[in-house]
């Protein structure tokens, strides 16, 4: 009898074929109990098509034992961690090593993509640091994927600068030219910008930024609701850490927060810091109830994330970490970024809002991916996406983490 085992099974194979079974897959706003994932060459592939077309049997079968299977988390606002501060440059070597350290460390929190964030800084810093923060593929060697940089400032409002140094803040009387001058947008390293619509020249520059492929988020601003709506009309897609560093909600002019109530425009996404300190849980619940599909969980973590309590530096400003929740500017007691991890943000979001696990997960996966327009490869488990995958228990504790199809240690 001729062998029923075709030899093509062994040939034409460039990568290992991994099959994940018995998981509860978070996909299409649902938990799918009865499906499998196939991973090949670092991507999620169509298993049925692969089975019938190529006839390959999986090399490895991973039994998820009923755990939730979700896309890896995406953090679009992270100033640093593990002692590294993306806004402090000594030399290229140190910055590269620092980036590697953070990229690898974040995997232990289930964060497989991030947008390293630079606070308001002098021009030289941008020119030194941005070229080092260009998009970089995530994999076992590199760590979490760098999606590009987030420049938070310096085109922000003086009274709402938070922990940013006042002397670095800028206006843009020459419009987009001033942005080019400060950032040197030559190498497409900037993925996301936080800008205040009420800063001179900012609104007129949005078109130039967007044409450059940069996603615009508004924040650190005392903009009125009218100014905020104008920014959205001009293409702003997000609010930077909602409630923090913006005009408080007032019923006659709700300011940037008022965008959550707009019916005239497509409502923007909003980043929100879910450490329970930066924003009261009740406020998070209010934001979620008004616009659940817009929530994006951000850590806004600074260098002391992942370090013991003590005194550290944020963009050159001395800050103090006390306990595991709070970092303050030593001089004025203002909040100076958080030290929470993204997986804790997801747990908190579910606890604070009472949302289901799918919504909590999507707020740190699908939503940020949609904001940055990378939802075809990140933040989903659809066919064609990068195989950045996490296993979670029902309490959203991280059990396993895979990047580009390879498992990495989370301990």
């Amino acid at each position, binding site marked *: 009898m001729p062998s*029923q085992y075709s030899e093509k099974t062994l040939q034409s194979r460039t990568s290992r074929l991994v099959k994940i079974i018995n998981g509860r897959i978070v996909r299409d706003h649902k938990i799918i109990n009865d499906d*499998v994932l196939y991973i090949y060459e670092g991507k999620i592939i169509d298993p049925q098509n692969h*089975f019938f077309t190529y006839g390959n049997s999986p090399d490895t079968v991973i039994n998820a034992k009923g755990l939730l299977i979700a896309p890896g988390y995406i953090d679009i606002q992270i100033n640093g961690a593990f002692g590294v501060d993306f806004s402090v440059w000594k030399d290229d070597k140190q910055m590269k090593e620092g980036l590697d350290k953070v990229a690898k460390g974040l995997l232990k929190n289930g964060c497989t993509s991030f947008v390293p964030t630079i606070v308001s800084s002098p021009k030289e810093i941008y020119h030194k640091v941005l070229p080092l923060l260009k998009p970089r593929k995530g994999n076992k060697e590199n760590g979490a994927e760098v999606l590009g940089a987030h420049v938070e400032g310096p085109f922000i409002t003086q009274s709402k600068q938070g922990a940013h140094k006042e002397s670095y803040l800028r206006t843009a009387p020459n419009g987009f030219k001033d942005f080019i001058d400060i950032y040197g947008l030559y190498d497409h390293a900037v993925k996301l910008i936080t800008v205040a619509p009420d800063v001179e020249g900012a609104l007129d520059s949005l078109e130039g930024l967007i044409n450059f492929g940069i996603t615009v988020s508004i924040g650190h601003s005392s903009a009125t609701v009218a100014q905020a709506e104008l920014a959205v009309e001009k293409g702003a897609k997000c609010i930077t850490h909602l409630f923090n560093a913006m005009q408080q909600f007032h019923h006659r002019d709700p300011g940037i927060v008022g965008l959550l109530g707009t019916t005239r425009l497509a409502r923007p996404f909003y980043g929100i810091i879910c450490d329970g300190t930066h924003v009261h849980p009740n406020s998070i619940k209010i934001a979620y109830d008004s616009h659940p599909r817009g929530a994006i969980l951000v850590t806004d973590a600074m260098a002391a994330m992942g370090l013991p309590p003590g005194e550290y530096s944020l963009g050159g400003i001395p800050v103090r970490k006390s306990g595991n929740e709070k970092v303050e500017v030593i001089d004025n007691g203002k909040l100076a970024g958080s030290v929470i991890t993204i997986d804790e943000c997801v747990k908190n979001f579910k606890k604070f809002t009472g949302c289901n696990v799918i919504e909590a997960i999507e707020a740190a996966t699908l939503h940020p991916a949609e904001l940055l327009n990378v939802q075809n490869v990140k933040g989903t488990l659809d066919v064609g996406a990068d195989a950045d995958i996490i296993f979670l228990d029902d309490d959203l504790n991280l059990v396993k983490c895979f990047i580009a199809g390879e498992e990495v240690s989370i301990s």
Partner: protein
Amino acid sequence: MRLIIRSDYDEVSEYIATYVKNRILEYNPTRERPFVLGLPTGSSPVGLYKCLVKFYRNNELSFKHVITFNMDEYVGLPRDHPESYHSFMWHHLFKHIDIAPDNVNILDGNAENLSEECVRFERKIKSVGGIELFIGGIGPDGHIAFNEPGSSLTSRTRVKTLAYDTILANSRFFDNDINKVPRMALTVGVGTVMEAREVAIIITGAHKAIALSKCIEEGVNHMWTVSAIQLHPKALIVCDEDATLELHVKTVKYFKSIEHVINNLIGAENVGLQGNVKKYPTPEATPEVTPEVTPEVTPICEAFYNLPFKR
């Protein structure tokens, strides 16, 4: 032919799945001597596949050395279309188990030359030594695979035009739009199925009661194609109570009595899976029973001797 009657769909599924499992285990397939299984699609086998997946997950059964042949596939429907039988088999069975993709055989409804594809399929069945066990379901009109009423009972794998009724019935899977339903299918023939060394048919639901009665209580007839099973030396039908509604009481009692005799008088352990006798229990083989029988007899005898006419 054996007819096994169970109370409902779930019990039927459990029975047939356990049967398939035991047949495969008993066969003990290897790479050189694989178990060749014929498989249906549709509503009848869904429960069966669920059970088989459960067995696989519990490490009770492996499909590593099982080769499968499916009965049919639509013509012209993309292979990845959710209603294709490729998709059906993938979602209900193949993606869950350890079967080698090369051991799976489903007719290609998008082949350039459809007749050639049918010939190739038949040749493939032969090349692996024929089908050991062909499992099927039936339609309310007694059709098996796409062999609708009037199909030749000696038919082989071929292209078949679907009856208007079938297109209408299947439109529920295609947005209720009959224009989206494929009009042709590739299907194994009645002859292909009957050539398998064993055929097992699942029949459940009151809507299939007439078909069951036509297929087993009346003659072999191409208007009820599955009735060809009457000529098969090793045939098994597993049905639920609802499907027996049109059978004679006598027919139902007859088949139930056979199960009763096997289980209670011969002992299920003495009968092989396919009804063959492994060991016929003789009275000498069970001497310990004898003393128990004697006291039962004695009082009757005493009663006899105590009858008035003896006095």
